[in-house]
Structure formats: C-alpha cells, structure tokens
C-alpha cells in the first residue's frame, strides 16, 4: 500500500459520505477525506453578508450548512417599542433591495387591524411602487446571476438600468433605496408632473437592453452549458421546503400571490403567471427574465389606467395617539422572491405586540439551499445560491 493510498478517492465520489446506521452522515474530518470550506461572509460568491459552511470531498459538496445572523438587527423586537407610524421607516430596512414590499405589508396589516380603508388612487400608486420595486429587484438579480459566471457586461448594463428605475423612485418618493413611500392609510405623494413620460422612456430603454441581455446571456453557449440541468428543484420539494415565487414556478407550480390573493390593483391588470417545467438554474433565470418583461408591461398598464388626481391618503386618526384594537392578521404580497408576508398581533395599545416577517429567503436560503448543495460541485455553489435569489437580511431580520 502506497502511503498516500488511504487518502485517495474512488472514482465515483457520489458514494461519499458513508451513512451511519442511524442515517446521519459519517463525516470524519480527521480521516482527511473531507475538508471544510467557508464561503462567506466576505466572499465574492455569496449573496450578501451570509456564509455557507461547505464540507467537501474533492470538489464535491457533501454537506452544507447556512450561517446567518450577520445582519441581525432585531427588527421584530425594535418594532415592539415603536408606535405604529414610527415603524413605517423601520420596516423597509428589513429587505434592502426591495423595501416597498415591507412597507406595503406592514401598512396593510395596520390598516386591516385598525379598519382604515385606503383610497383608490393610493392603491394604484402602491401597485406602481411595488411593480417598480420588482423591476429593479430583477434587474439587480440578473446582473448578479450573470456576474457569478463571469458575464460582467450584463451586470454593467443591468445596474445602469436599475439606476434608471431608482431615478424614477427618487422622483416619485424622495428616496433612492429606502422609499418610505407607503404609509398607513395610503402613500405620501402623488406622481410628479411628467413622471409617466420619463418612466415610459426608461422602460423603452430597458426593453432595448433586455433584447441584448437575451443574446448575451440566454442564447449564450457558455451560460447554457453551465446552467442547464444543474441545481434542480424537484417539484415534490415545493411544499415540504416551503418554496415560493419563481423558484416554485420554475418547478411547475402556478402559485402567484398577485393572482391567487389579489392585492392593490392587480385584479384590474392583465398579466399571465409564467411557469416552467425544467426547474434548473437556466429555467429559473429565464423565468425571471420573462417576469421582468411582464413587469415592464404591468408598469405601462398601471400608468395608463391610473386616474389623474384624487386622494392618495386616507383620513387617518392622529398617528401620535393611534391605538389598534386587539387582534391578529397576516398579509402577503408577491415580491421577486415569492410570497412575502407579515404577521401582526396587536394588543390594544399604541405599539404592536408582535410583528413577524416571513421572507421567502427564510426557507430558500437555509433548508432548501442546504439540501440543494449536497453533491453539487464546489464551483457551482455560488450559481445555485444566486439562482435561488436570496436576500440574507430577510432571513435574520
């Protein structure tokens, strides 16, 4: 026996790791067959400030463990000691790239519990803000997804395009990233003069670039080679792992909160829920690309159908003294990653008793990712992770 022989591997490495009698993995680090690799928190191939602890055998992952908590600020605790209105600026920080869904869900929770009805115009403006948030969220994602495979150009374009949407956000809401546009009872301002035309100009530019992105990414041999057939989500995982949004729809599901539980003005808009069967990285990416085009169409529809003028804020009681009768509610909306939900319990005081944020990444980035990374190649970890479209801050809040 060669002295290195006991460290060499069989040709078929899928045999590793062996399982113990009770079904758990038999990973003995001192056997030198396995090595632990940390991907993150400071790593270019990670989606934000989180980490994946990989146990690899050669270049194959045999066990993965997600580590979160690097961005934990204790929102749910902080909300309990702030008045209902004071939480409006706070909640948007829960999910940095798409703050509007937090604002919408939070405000709707309070409105449900307090019995405030929102004016029609405000619903249109909310829908507009939410769709713009989806659009810029997808634009940011597509750049990141291409970037993990080295397609830097797409990232250069998509970040520019996202910036155009942010410019419109800035004009509409007064903020680039944190809009704090949706308040309890409505929104903070009407659309400015000339907004519609500028938005349409931007959408046209985005559509033009989208054609190029299709050519450079989805019709690209390298991209196809690296993504097709990789990172498959089995359709039967959808409910056990709580998979929602594009990740579930690429696996054949038709669940879309906008269609199933219409909120805002989605019931008056015409759109189709995109779905796919392949359920690999390519399918998910392409589905998001299609949804991005749907978003552009939806924004155009919203701008067309939005009434001019009208109240954008309900007559709400004094926010300093706002107290809400005891009760509980759950409000969901469809963000780029899927079902985004807020569960709120009030106890009759001026402060929420409990707010729980259900971010889609909570299940995607922990249980599902840990499952999907098993037997993946270490070079594909970043891609698989990005293809799930996870935002760490909404996991730990």
């Amino acid at each position: 026996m060669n002295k290195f022989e006991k460290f060499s591997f069989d040709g078929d490495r899928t045999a590793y790791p062996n399982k113990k009698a009770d079904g758990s993995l038999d990973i003995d680090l001192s056997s030198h067959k396995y090595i632990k690799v940390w991907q993150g928190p400071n790593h270019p191939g990670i989606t934000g400030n989180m980490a994946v602890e990989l146990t690899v055998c050669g270049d194959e992952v045999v066990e993965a463990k997600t580590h979160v908590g690097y961005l934990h600020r204790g929102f749910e605790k902080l909300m309990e000691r702030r008045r209902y209105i004071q939480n409006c600026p706070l909640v948007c920080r829960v999910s940095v790239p798409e703050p509007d869904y937090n604002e919408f869900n939070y405000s709707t929770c309070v409105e449900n519990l307090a019995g405030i009805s929102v004016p029609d115009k405000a619903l249109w403006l909310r829908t507009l803000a939410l769709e713009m948030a989806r659009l810029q969220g997808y634009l940011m994602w597509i750049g990141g997804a291409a970037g993990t495979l080295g397609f830097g150009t797409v990232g250069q374009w998509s970040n520019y395009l996202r910036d155009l949407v942010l410019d419109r956000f800035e004009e509409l809401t007064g903020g680039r990233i944190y809009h704090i546009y949706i308040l309890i009872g409505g929104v903070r301002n009407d659309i400015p003069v000339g907004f519609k035309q500028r938005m349409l100009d931007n959408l046209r530019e985005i559509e033009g670039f989208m054609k190029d992105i299709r050519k450079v990414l989805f019709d690209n041999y390298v991209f196809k080679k690296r993504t097709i057939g990789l990172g498959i989500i089995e359709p039967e995982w959808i409910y056990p792992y709580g998979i929602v949004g594009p990740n579930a729809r690429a696996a054949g599901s038709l669940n879309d909160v906008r269609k199933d539980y219409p909120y805002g003005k989605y019931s008056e808009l015409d759109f189709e829920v995109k779905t796919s069967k392949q359920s690999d990285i390519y399918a998910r990416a392409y589905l998001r690309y299609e949804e991005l085009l749907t978003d552009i169409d939806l924004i155009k529809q919203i701008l067309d159908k939005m009434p001019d003028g009208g109240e954008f804020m309900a007559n709400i009681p004094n926010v300093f003294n706002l107290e809400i009768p005891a009760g509980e509610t759950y409000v969901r909306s469809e963000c780029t990653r899927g079902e985004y939900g807020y569960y709120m319990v009030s106890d009759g005081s001026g402060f929420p008793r409990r707010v729980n944020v259900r971010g889609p990444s909570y299940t995607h980035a922990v249980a599902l990712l840990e499952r999907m990374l098993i037997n993946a190649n270490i070079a594909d970890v970043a891609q698989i992770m990005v293809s799930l479209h996870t935002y760490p801050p909404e996991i730990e809040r």
Partner: protein
Amino acid sequence: MSLEDLYRKTTISPDGEEFEINPIEDYFCTDKPEEVKPVQNILEKFYNWARSESIWILGFGTGCGAIEMRPLMTPRFDAYRYGIQWRPTPRQANLLIISGYLSTKTLKRVIRVYEQMQNPKYVMALGSCTINGGMYFDSYNTIKRLDYYLPVDVYVAGCMPRPEALLAGVVKLKTLIKTGMAEGANDYANRFDWYKTNQKAVILNWDMPDYNW
C-alpha cells in the same frame, strides 16, 4: 471556526505520523501591530500621492449600504476613473468600507478582515449607524459607534449615503492621504489595547487570537 479548533490537539499527518499542534501559535502570528512612522520627506509625498490614487476597496458588504456599491462600480457612476477598484480579498485591499450597521457577529469578522489587510489601510464608515447607532440605536445586536472598535478615517452621513456621497467620501479620503492625515492604521497600533478592550467587551465569544493577520 469554533473554539475547539483553537485548542491544542493531536493530529495525524498524511504520512501517518502523529503530532501535536497548538493552533494559536502554529497558525497565527501573535505579534502586536506596530506603528509605521511616515518618512518626513519628498518620498513620503510621492508615496501618499500613489496611495491616494489607488484606492482598492474590499468587496465586503457588511450592511445595507453595500447595495449602493454596485451602481458605483458600474458605468453610471464609474468609480474606477477615480482610481478606485474593488478586490475580493483583504490581502489586496487598502480601504475597508463599513457600509452601515454592524452586528456583533459581523464585527468579529470585520476585525479579522481589517487586521488581515496590509498597511497602509483606511476605514470609511457609511451612514448614521456607524456614527451613533442610527435606526438601531436601541438594538441589542448592533454596535453604535464604530470608532471604538476600528480607527475610522472618514465618515459619510446618510441612510444610506447615495453613490455620489460615497464617492465624495473617497475623494475626501484621497485628500487626507495626500496630506498625510489618514493615520488610522497607526492609531490602531498605538491604541491597540484600548481597541481590544472595547472589542472584547461586545464580542461575547472571543474565540480567536488577539491579533491575526
């Protein structure tokens, strides 16, 4: 890494030889950082000019402010024309941007990252959170003022600062470097014990060497 990994232990080499290792001594250099005194002559001015024109930022998004870095490194704002670029590893970077709030869990990683960076190195703090706690002034998990834990050269106000403001921060840092005033790294070396006391006060499971680079 966990605490057990730092304990003295016996291991088997690939040759089958058993030997004992003490990770703290064997894997890390335990020397304290030392002050590097600037050379007071024309050469130092040249160095400072060169340093100021090659700001290499560590691509570590510690908080929400990191989201504005992508627009900054892409064509719209194109920070590269200011001599700025992003690097994936602390060994290659000389500017650490703390983009907003720091949870104690991240602070621990940030300290390691900072100590692993090579001199000359600078720290830029973004947003209210690094100045006085910001929105999370009452959070149990985030530090309130960064300058107790790392030497901060430049603060940029905002929540979060726009890419333009971030760029203005870098431009300010460049002037500081050129005038020889960005001496954060030396401050860290001089007041090393003070910084360590503060760091250890908030990081509950200190399971790493005092200084590791």
